[in-house]
Structures are given as C-alpha cells and as structure tokens.
C-alpha cells in the first residue's frame, strides 16, 4: 500500500519524464545486465566454439571467432580416445548411491534436531555446524589410512559411505525446511497413537519433497564435480569418474585443445541441464541459508 502512495508522487509529471524514467528504470539496467551477461557467457561460448575448430584453425594467427568448418568429428574423437561413456556411467552410479544416502540420512538427522524435543538436539546441531568449519584435510589422512586398512581403497565405498552418515549442508537444509512445517500435522497423528517413526515417514517425509529435491540436486553437482576424493581413492582406470578421466585426458593430450574442449563441453552439459531443470531449488537453498535461526 505504502509503496503505491510513494511511487505515485511523481505521476503528474509522468508524460514529461517518461523517457528519462524508463531510461533509468529499464533501459540502463538492461544494458548493464546484458553486457555483464555476455561477459559471463563468453567463456562458455568460447568453449563450444573452440571445440568445433580444426587443429590448424586453433593455432591460426590471428585467431578466428567462429569455426570455418564445424568439426563435429572432434566430439567423436574425444569420445573414442578415452572410455568417456564408462566414466559417465561410473560417475552416475556414484551420484545415484550418494543421493540415496543423502535422502536417507539428511532428513532423518534433521528431524531429530527440528522436531524431537530431546536433550541432545542442540549439541547435535552445534556439531553438525562445526563440521562445516573443520577443513577436510585435517581428517583426510587418517580416514585414508583407515579405509586402506579395510581394503576399501580402489572401491566406491570411501566415496559413498559418508553420504549415509549425513552431510552438514544437507542436514541444515532439511532442518530449515522442517522448522517451517507446523506441528499440527504430527500432533494429530500422535493423538491417534502413531509412533515417532511412522509420523516421520508417513507425514513429514512426503512434506519434505521440495527440500529433498534440493538435496538431490546439490548432491548431484557435488559428486559430479568432485575431484580430490576420486583422485585419492580410485587407482583402477575402469573405476574412474569423469573428472579423473578428463584430467588424465589432459595429461595425455595437453595441447590438443579442440579435443579437450569437446571433452570439457560434454562433461559440462549434464551439470548445466540439471541446473536448468532444478533452478528453483538452487534459489530455495540460497533463501534457506539466509534464514538462519
């Protein structure tokens, strides 16, 4: 209401100021946003353009912007010069297991913090937050030694077990979401004599869907991007993930830019697709971080 009153003040001079008003409120912002948008998009476009150039064109002086004859063959070459599809499959397997793990652990733990009024809840929550600050390097070496003594090196166990035990960020997301769900839902069920687990599983879990979608998307991105853990734990090339594969490809073809760019493009596309389809969940995560209570 108040906004309207305030902004309606200059209405009497509207026709006169119309252009400068529009310039200020619409045109200039659009120009700035578009220019900056181009800066952000450019490397990405450059990636795709380079991936379509021939080797001679890449080293041409002066450089060309658009490939004169798009070389789709670069993609075929990149695909055949390394087991790209196997790496994708491996990474997807890891993504799937990690998502299952996160969907199991994050809401469960968050529920104990947000909805059960027990003595340890604040301690658990504080510890969850503390793990965000603890640099992973501090525990990396002993964890590696433990896993190697268990014979788990060169398997997917070290890369998946953690998600079944909860990750701070995802627990936090679910907690924020749970806090927003009124207790009336569960109280009614409790009166009917339902046990806590049934309330969690039958009532709360379905309500958590948007948060779980966010968790899944972030887990996808995290696993898809991860480089250090696969680097440390996976030795056998047949188990490699896509980021390890691309790094290996880089060390063998370090100046075959057209192939590198084609491979990098293929590596990037799934990530971008997930982003476009799940855009609103990224926003949600941003919002829930700002509403820290």
């Amino acid at each position, binding site marked *: 209401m108040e906004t309207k009153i305030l902004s309606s003040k200059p209405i009497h001079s509207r026709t006169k100021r119309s252009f400068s008003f529009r310039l200020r409120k619409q045109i200039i912002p659009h120009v700035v946003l578009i220019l900056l948008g181009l800066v952000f998009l450019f490397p990405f476009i450059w990636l795709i353009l380079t991936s379509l150039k021939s080797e001679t064109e890449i080293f041409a002086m002066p450089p060309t912007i658009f490939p004169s004859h798009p070389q789709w063959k670069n993609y075929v070459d990149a695909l055949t010069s390394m087991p790209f599809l196997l790496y994708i499959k491996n990474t997807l397997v890891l993504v799937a297991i990690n998502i299952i793990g996160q969907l199991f652990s994050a809401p469960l733990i968050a529920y104990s913090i947000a909805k*059960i009024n*027990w003595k*340890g809840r604040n301690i658990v929550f504080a510890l969850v937050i503390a793990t965000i600050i603890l*640099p992973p390097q501090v*525990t990396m070496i002993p964890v590696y030694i433990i896993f190697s003594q268990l014979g788990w090196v060169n398997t997917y166990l070290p890369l998946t077990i953690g998600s079944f035990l909860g990750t701070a960020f995802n627990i936090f997301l679910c907690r924020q979401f749970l806090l927003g769900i009124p207790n009336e839902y569960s109280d009614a069920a409790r009166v009917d004599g339902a046990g806590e687990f049934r309330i969690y599983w039958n009532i709360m879990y379905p309500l958590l869907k948007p948060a779980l979608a966010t968790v899944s998307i972030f887990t996808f991105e995290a696993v898809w991007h991860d480089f250090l853990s696969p680097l440390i734990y996976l030795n056998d090339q047949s188990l490699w993930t896509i980021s390890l594969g*691309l790094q290996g490809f880089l060390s063998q073809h370090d100046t075959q830019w057209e192939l590198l760019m084609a491979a990098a493009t293929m590596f*990037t596309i799934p990530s971008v697709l997930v982003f476009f389809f799940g855009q609103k969940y990224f926003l949600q995560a941003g*919002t829930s971080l700002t509403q820290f209570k």
Partner: protein
Amino acid sequence: MAFTVSEASKRKHSKKEWHKFWLGLAFSSPFIIGFLGLTVFPFIESFYYSLTDYDLFNSPNWVGFQNYLDIFHDDAFYKSIINTMFMAFIGTPVSLIISLLIALLLNMKVKGVSIYRAIYYLPSVIPVVASSILWMWVFNPQYGIIDTFLRAVHLPDPSWFLDPNFTKPALIIMGLWGTGGGALIYLAALQGIPKELYEAASIDGATMWHRFRFITLAALSPITLFQLIMGLIGSFQIFTESFILAGNSAQGGPDQSMLFYAVNLYQEAFVNLHMGYASALAWILFVIVMLITLIIFKTSLRWVYYGGE
C-alpha cells in the same frame, strides 16, 4: 495431595524425557556414528600421526614434535602459506564485492530477471576440472582470446598461468566467473529486507548512499559474515585448479606460485608418502583456520547487525 501429584507427573515427565532422548538419539544416530568414526577418531589419530614418521609401508615411528620443527624450516610451507593468504585475503573480498554487486543488479525490478539470474549462476555449476581447462585456453598467451584482445587494444598482455606474478590474479579472475553462487545467496537476503525500512528512510530524507550503507549493508552483514568465513575456509582448500593448471607435477606451476596449502599437503601425503609430516601440516591448518574464524567472529560484533529480535 498436591505433592504426590507433582511427584507422579515428574516421574511420568522424566520417563517421557527419556523416551524422547532415545528417540532423538536413534534418529540422529547416522550422524553420531559418522561424527565419531569419520571426524573425532581421525581427528585424534591425525594428531598422533603428526608425531610420527610414517610412510604407509613401515609402521609409524615416534619422532615427537620433529615434524612441526621441520615444517618451520620448510620453504614450501612458507610459500604455500603466502600463496594461500593471497587467495584468502585478496581473492575472497574481491569475490564478495563482485557477488554483492551482481546481486544488487539482479534485485532491480526489470523484466526477464530470471533469465539474467540463470546466466550469472550458470558458470558456478561448471565442474572445476572443465572450467580450469577452459581458462587455461582462454588465458593462453599465444592463442588465448584475452591476450589477443589486449594486444588488439595495445595493452600489456601478461602470460597469466605461465608467469609467476600473474598466476594468482588469473585464478581470482577465473573464480569471479563462478561468483553466481554467492550472488544468489545475497539476492535471497536482499529480497528479505523489509521494504518499509527503505520507505521510512526516504521519508526521513536519507540519500541513496545512506540507504545502501545503513540499511542494505547492515541487513546483509550476517550473510557477509557467513560468506566471508566460508570463503576464507574455502581458499585454504584450493586444490583442483592448481592441480590441473600447474600440470601433473603438482609442484605448483611456475616458481611454485600456485603451490597452495592443500596442494602442498596432498603432495607430502600422497606423492612423497610423508604421512606424519602431512598430518602435522593438517594440524597447523586446523589451528590457522580456527584462529581466523575466531578473529572474524570477534571483530564481527562490531560490524554485523542481527535483526530486531
């Protein structure tokens, strides 16, 4: 009479308490198991290893605080600290400012803002391995697009990832490309600032700058604190970019200018197999990160405003 009732309810109460306690414990048990097994135990064990000489092949050999003494005579350690501090104290603030500016732009009431939002956020979902390879090419001094452009407008054209003075600035520029994530968080916070605050200030005759300084920045300060701490901690973990850009040797590129703390630690642990020494490095990292967090929290009392309540 009243006495017995309250006694009974108390007992009942405490029984209920215990029930809830066990429930809470059961629900959070995955975290507790993980916390004990993958955080607390390794954390302590890491300290033990830091007092030994251990190469994974022979059993750990007790050396007391020798590793810590050696670290303070190790050039690579100092080099990695300086490089990391550069990223932490120059890179983090720069990217915070840029992400705030982007958030302010995106907060304008213009049509199609969701498209811009998507474009700015896009680079931050590109895997680091891929974006490092891309930027290696963009920054190529001979054929790269940036230097070609700089030459065309007769500006100096640095060798970026090949020149020790420019590797870190190049990394920061590369990092700015991915500031969309931080901007998104700022944007969410901006949209949470009550309009009434601005209106009241306008009525009081506050200038635009004052409104920005005393309302926007103040309201965003808790988020700035969060992003600052996460950014600083993140810069102590920079690894993949350096690993890719500095070549397979992992020695940190030209003149070791990209030898960061996490890279040096990885090198000691998994290349040289100096597990004890690397554990000592990890503990020093822990102390540094804790100190930085503590100092920032302390000083934050002066510049962070928590809303009314």
